[in-house]
């Protein structure tokens, strides 16, 4: 079972990387861009587990390690 985890900074946390890239995109000519946020994509192969097991495992992994929920939020998608 494969999965993708997306981790992004919470809206309330400033993202200086996103801000720098927004500036670069503006300079490229995309002047209308209002906001850029950088996040992480984590691809996992969870081995031979059911979808329910995968769901449970991913939630724990995200809460405990993959995201720091003080500053980040996460979403995941299980690929069947």
């Amino acid at each position, binding site marked *: 079972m494969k999965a993708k985890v997306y981790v992004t*900074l919470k809206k309330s*946390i*400033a993202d*200086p*990387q996103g801000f*720098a890239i927004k500036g670069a995109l503006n300079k490229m000519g995309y002047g209308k861009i209002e906001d850029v946020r950088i996040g992480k994509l984590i691809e996992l192969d969870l081995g031979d587990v059911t979808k329910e097991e995968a769901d449970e495992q991913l939630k724990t992994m995200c809460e405990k*390690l*993959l995201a*720091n929920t*003080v*500053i980040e939020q996460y979403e995941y998608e299980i690929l069947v």
Partner: protein
Amino acid sequence: MKFGIIVFPGSNCDIDCYHVLKDVLGKDVEYIWHDTEELEDFDCIILPGGFSYGDYLRCGAVAQFSKAMEQVRLHAEKGKLVLGICNGFQILTEAGLLSGALVRNKNLKFICDTVALKVENNNTSFTSRYNVGEVIDIPIAHGEGNYVVDEDTLKKMKENGQVLFTYEENPNGSTFNIAGVCNARKNVLGMMPHPERAGEALLGNTDGIKLFQSIIDYLEGGAKNDK
């Protein structure tokens, strides 16, 4: 009295901490490899700066799961002292032993400098040798030292005197200019600046030595955490 310095793969300020405690202050100190499962003998544990486990994923995120960190958690629960410097501070927040988190510096730069810090509270085992309001110069060297904490938690921390050091001029975007904070029980301190790099006149700066001397006073005097 015995100090222990945890050495993670990627720690690089462990030797500086050892040097200050052993050679400058003449105290008993040992390195502790990160997979050690026994920390009973130690009175104060130091998590040194560096890039533990390559700082992969987030700074300090992987180190929180090392065997030694399980023991550090128990050590802290007993009310014994834990000092996290720089990457050590990041590990303590990731492990949930301190509130908040450390994110990328506002200007995106790795900052290596000596900065002025104000001592906000000297009523702790880490800061008793300083005066409140005293301004000290301590080196910083970090890319992720921007301390972030929610408003409610910050309010409680301020009321409880948990903010121990603030920057006179904010270098990294840190909330409330915070450079170092402790837990509610005041036995766990995390700080981004490096007091171990300001420990002897030969190297041009002794402003950090009083932090280690305060700890020694506490351990030798058996003084209570919150006098």
